[in-house]
């Protein structure tokens, strides 16, 4: 086993194990049962903002951005700006709405807005979509471990799943938030030092990188605006798919639901947006630099950046960087594993058991489901390694109708039949777009699944809500009678 991997693993055992042990000790002292799903709903600005920022720093940010900037140039930063817009939507909109209503899961919110049947349908699909994301995060954990150890991707993914499952099953969201806080400090310290260090170890420094692109007539790769075509196609596609699919995703919403109050979520925007957005600058720079150095460029876009880091930086800095990267991947894995476990315990079991589950039984059930999810994800990833970006885009498309029916149900009107038609038609179109040649027949091959599903959801919802005569007013719609002028309550 390589020294780098051993040191990264020791770091993670100390941080994850130490915090897990402390939370267990505290739980015993206070004779409390850990709230795995929501951590007692008392997350502060620091905890919430860091968790929200790091939950959305996954495999695409760490490895995908190096690859994207190698090929496209600095315009790849629009992927980060799309996530900044997403965090704005969560902190100023969706996150505050779910916290105000007090739901623990997105299906529960949909159940409150519409009916129990729709809650069950969305819970089943939502849980399986997030489970799909868990398998992809397991694969990317495996890529990181494989790069450090030289082991096969299959076995590395199994190791990644074991660490990730241990991470979240110890103390749920509170454990994840504490580890995130420490990992964020380590990660930012390491990328700042590495960015400065690279200026001294790159063959011709950052000036040489600039000169390379200028002399090859590719100056546009140094600008975030790229070329007009590139800017329009790449940035719009990134914003579209990230914002609609992720702004009501259980992973991010679970963090919002655990916040102390709405003000915490609103104030966190000033911290979480720059923490999340600025992270991407480092991988983009690494990708840009790697493409200018023949020995790394020859390895191709997937491996060039990662190899440059290992080859040019000193071991201690590589360890710090990998520990930070692994921390970001583990955090996304943890929130992804916690989300379907919470949906299963609360919406599929808890909602159908008379009187609901006791806190202790709910904690045990969530822990068991996390372990089962980790085991299945590990065994699936041992054999299957799909393209991460394509698979994520496909999975996101399933969630897009949730955004539209939630916004309409809160601020316009709600008819459960219309909402059912919206989700079913969106999912059918998503399947047809994936498994038939419908998009070629219609001449719409340029539209990705996330785009067509969002368009179908919006059109179906608008037409359905205009035509319906039995809709209730949106939950936040003010009723205009004088003595009922306050916001409608649940």
């Amino acid at each position, binding site marked *: 086993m390589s020294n780098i991997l051993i040191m990264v693993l020791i770091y993670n055992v100390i941080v994850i194990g130490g915090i897990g042990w402390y939370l267990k000790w505290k739980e015993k002292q206070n004779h409390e049962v850990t709230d795995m799903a929501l951590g007692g709903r008392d997350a502060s600005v620091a905890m919430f903002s860091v968790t929200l920022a790091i939950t959305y720093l996954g495999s695409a940010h760490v490895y995908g951005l190096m690859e994207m900037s190698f090929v496209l140039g600095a315009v790849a930063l629009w992927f980060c700006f799309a996530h900044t817009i997403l965090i*704005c939507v969560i902190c100023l909109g969706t996150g505050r709405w779910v916290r105000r209503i007090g739901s623990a899961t997105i299906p529960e919110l949909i159940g409150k807005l519409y009916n129990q049947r729709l809650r069950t349908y969305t819970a089943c699909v939502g849980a399986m979509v997030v489970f799909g994301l868990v398998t992809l995060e397991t694969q990317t954990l495996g890529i990181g471990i494989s790069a450090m150890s030289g082991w096969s991707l299959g076995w590395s993914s199994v190791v990644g799943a074991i660490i990730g499952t241990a991470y979240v099953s110890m103390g749920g969201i509170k454990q994840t938030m504490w580890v995130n806080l420490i990992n964020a400090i380590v990660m930012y310290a390491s990328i700042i030092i590495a960015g400065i260090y690279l200026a001294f170890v790159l063959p011709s420094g*950052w000036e040489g990188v600039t000169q390379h692109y200028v002399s090859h007539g590719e100056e546009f790769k140094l600008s975030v605006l790229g070329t007009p075509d590139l800017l329009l196609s790449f940035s719009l596609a990134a914003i579209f798919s990230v914002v609609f699919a992720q702004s009501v995703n259980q992973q991010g919403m679970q963090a919002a639901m655990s916040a102390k109050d709405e003000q915490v979520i609103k104030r966190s925007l000033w911290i979480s947006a720059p923490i999340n957005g600025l992270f991407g600058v480092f991988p983009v720079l690494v990708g840009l630099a790697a493409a200018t150095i023949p020995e790394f460029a020859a390895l191709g876009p997937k491996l060039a950046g990662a190899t440059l880091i290992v080859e040019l930086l000193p071991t201690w800095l590589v360890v710090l960087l990998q520990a930070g990267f692994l921390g970001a991947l583990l955090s996304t894995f943890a929130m992804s594993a916690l989300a379907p476990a919470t949906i299963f315990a609360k919406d599929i079991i808890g909602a159908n058991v008379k009187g609901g589950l006791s806190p202790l039984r709910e904690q045990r059930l969530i822990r068991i489901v996390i372990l089962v999810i980790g085991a299945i994800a590990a065994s699936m990833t041992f054999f299957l390694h799909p393209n991460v970006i394509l698979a994520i885009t496909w999975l996101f498309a399933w969630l897009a109708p949730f955004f539209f029916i939630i916004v309409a149900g809160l601020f316009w009107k709600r008819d459960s039949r219309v909402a059912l038609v919206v989700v079913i038609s969106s999912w059918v179109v998503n399947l047809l777009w994936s498994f038939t040649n419908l998009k070629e027949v219609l001449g719409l091959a340029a539209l990705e699944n996330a785009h067509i599903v969002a368009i179908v959801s919006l059109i179906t919802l608008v037409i359905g809500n205009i035509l319906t005569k039995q809709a209730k007013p949106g939950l936040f719609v003010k009723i205009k009678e004088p003595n009922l002028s306050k916001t409608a309550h649940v």
Partner: protein
Amino acid sequence: MNIAVELFLTAFGTIMAIVIVSILISKIIEKCGEGS
């Protein structure tokens, strides 16, 4: 100014601009909601 510093400042400026514009839009929506 080298490309690393330039990209960092551009990213920081863009992120802050997005945050400020988003807050302004949300305030306008809230005001409109109160007015209706």
